[in-house]
């Protein structure tokens, strides 16, 4: 019962945090608010009986990815001081976006809400790290491999693209 209550609170927090995040002029602030949202989500995951996922949410998203964002933002010195009007949309521009978003939201919710997946009879569910790991490394071993390959080549690509020095002796592509 408490859990349900907490869920709604957390949900509210997540939405609000996101709302603020996506409207900040300053990317740094946006990232910070987003981290809040992710924490909230992590807790929701925990409540839904996915402790591992919750942990990873915190570690990977809030920890790794967002920090990476911060790092890049810092590195490129993208502070709002550099002509904020250039990057950030005004309310006028937000308006149609919101209209579309709301329209979509309404449609989707109506559609998804149409068949009621009520929680009755669904017991609390708790995925222990053991059986999590078990199925992960039994059924999904191959998937793990693929994901690892992905990461490897992503790294390669990132390295290649991000290589600082331009190649010598190659004329700039004319077109």
């Amino acid at each position, binding site marked *: 019962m408490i859990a349900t209550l907490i869920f709604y609170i957390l949900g509210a927090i997540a939405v609000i945090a996101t709302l603020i995040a996506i409207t900040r002029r300053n990317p740094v602030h946006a*990232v910070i608010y987003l981290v809040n949202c992710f924490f909230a989500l992590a807790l929701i995951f925990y409540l839904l009986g996915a402790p591992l996922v919750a942990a990873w949410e915190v570690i*990977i998203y809030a920890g790794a990815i967002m920090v990476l964002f911060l790092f890049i933002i810092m590195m490129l010195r993208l502070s709002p001081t550099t002509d904020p009007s250039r990057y950030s949309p005004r309310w006028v521009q937000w308006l149609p976006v919101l209209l579309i978003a709301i329209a979509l939201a309404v449609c989707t919710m109506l559609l998804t809400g149409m068949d009621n997946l009520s929680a009755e009879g669904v017991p609390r569910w708790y995925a222990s790290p053991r059986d999590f790991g078990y199925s992960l490394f039994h059924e999904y071993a191959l998937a793990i491999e693929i994901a690892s390959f992905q990461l490897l080549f992503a790294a390669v*690509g990132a390295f290649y693209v991000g290589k600082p020095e331009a190649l010598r002796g190659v004329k700039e592509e004319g077109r």
Partner: protein
Amino acid sequence: MIVPMGHLLILATILFLLGLACVIAWRNLIMILIGIEVMLNAVCLTLVGASAYWQRIDGQIMVIFMMAMTSAEVSISLAMVVYLQRRKNSIDIRDFDEMRG
């Protein structure tokens, strides 16, 4: 299950569309990427909820893969950001409309 699945879906949808709104509204590449992150998180939420609803674990496992994928994608995207910043000294997507028609 603590809440009806429907509510979870509603929450997820809201988050997803907020992310989408962010992507549409912003011209700043970083913010666009952030929006994408938001959308992906909404997906994670759905998956976790679904796995709780169906009492099956593979939903959560899918979340793991998504995280891996996300991090890979983010690394590339940020590298791209750096690259673009270096080339054009701008990460405003409005500056990238050389090809058209």
